[in-house]
């Protein structure tokens, strides 16, 4: 049993605040698209999209990005990489000239985000890419930072930060596991 950092209410408020900040920063929702990084980032992206729907009565497209094959810490079979790269994505819109908001649960080393940036760039040339994360736990290994953060949780590298989302975990919470 880990130490609870964010409960259901705090998590909801964090996503609500991120939503307001996204509109504030982009001066509206024009050309906005959300891309969630699998697995939990997708659910968080959908929740942000639901909030934007409530708030502005617009339907913002949500895509699912699987960056497994872009990771630099997994060895790839060089010959087949281009074919499988895109296989698990579910993005049925063009990112060309769009303002892309990448959504993930935890920002840690920055390697996932680096991979996601490459993957999005392979899909087209967006006008801009912003990063929204529920938790920023520090320990970056790349020059990457989030534009929208739910909660900064300074952590030790020995700790594990676990985000639970109701859709697959049956509860909403963020916990630190030792």
């Amino acid at each position, binding site marked *: 049993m880990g130490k609870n950092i964010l409960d259901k209410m*705090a998590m909801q408020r964090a996503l609500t605040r991120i939503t307001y900040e996204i509109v504030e920063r982009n*001066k509206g929702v024009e050309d906005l698209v959300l891309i969630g990084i699998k697995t939990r980032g997708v659910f968080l992206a959908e929740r942000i999209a639901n909030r934007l729907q409530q708030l502005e009565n617009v339907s913002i497209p949500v895509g699912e990005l699987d960056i497994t094959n872009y990771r630099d810490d997994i060895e790839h079979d060089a010959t087949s990489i281009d074919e499988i790269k895109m296989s698990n994505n579910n993005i049925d819109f063009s990112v060309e000239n769009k303002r892309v908001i990448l959504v993930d649960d935890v920002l840690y080393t920055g390697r996932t985000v680096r991979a996601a940036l490459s993957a999005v760039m392979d899909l087209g040339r967006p006008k801009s890419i912003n990063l929204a994360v529920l938790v920023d736990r520090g320990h970056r290994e790349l020059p990457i930072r989030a534009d929208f953060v739910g909660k900064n949780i300074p952590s030790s590298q020995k700790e594990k930060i676990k985000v639970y989302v109701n859709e697959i975990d049956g509860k909403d919470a963020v916990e630190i596991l030792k």
Partner: protein
Amino acid sequence: MTERYLILEDGSAYLGKAFGSLSTTTGEIVVNSTMNGYQEIISNQIYHNQIIVFTQSSIGNTGLDQNAYESIMPTAKGVVVKEYENLATDQFKRISLDRYLKLHRIPGIYDVDTRQIVHHLREKGNMKASIVDVADEHAFDQLHATVLTNQQVSQVATPKPYANPGDGDNVVVVDFGLKSGILRELSKRDCNITVVPWNSTSEMILDLDPDGVVLSTGPGAPTSLPDDVLEMIRNVQEAVPMLAIGLGHELFAMANDAQIVALESMHYGSNHPIREIITNEVFYAGQEQGYAIDSKSINHDKLYITHADLINGTVQGLRHRDYPAFSVQFSPDGAPGPKDAVGVFDDFVEIMARRRDSSETRF
């Protein structure tokens, strides 16, 4: 037991029994439907110059708690209730309600039909009232002749700045007649607070180098304050994160072009469900509201409506589109009332933290 009368501007009179101070007072009569928290209600400066009718049938039964005052010097003008208990017999040797009211020269009257009074007021609208010894022509003449000030804020707000130190975010609270609950919740979040008078200019406020600014609750109509206050709000909202509550919320709306309307039936209670629009979640909070924002007057290029009252449809929350500035009509500190909305303060602290972090990397 001394018999006294509650008389209303429209000529009605109610015979009851006295408690608290035996002075004669006049004020605007308002109905509070909150079940508990008579101490917080009576000591809240929002009831400045007002006689409070409790629909809760019995008050006084838990004495007064030293941690639950909402101001040092209450300025309510009277307390009306069906049944009054004078219990202060617990181990903490609390002050009794009777003693407290005597101390602050607030008269009380009980054993009157508060249900009837509430129905009467709902029908006839807002009016003045007095608590008097005899309900004769002279008393009514006095009542009619009394002019209640519309400068309530300057009567109850601090005339000088004061500090309420902490180790965290530097927060300036603009005092329009604040309730202590606001300071209590900011202190819990370790804020380093400076409370400044309601008529402070934006220069004075920003010179204190705040991480955020809070506009407090307070009594009276927002329209009776000078336009300088709106100018201050416009300048501050551009510079730093802002949270506005109650009267502060109404002023925040006015500063961003919205109009204010007086409610036909004032609402003091915590029984109205409030919907947060962005999540569709419903919660309850204490509300003390004589005025509301005319929702048709809201400029949607500047403000979102974030919360709405599901009973009377009033705007309960706003947020600026371009700046990290937001406001709530209800009392998120829950003193008294539900604490459902206390996260508003967490949001405010989080927004201040975000702003500080955004220019540099923390790790």
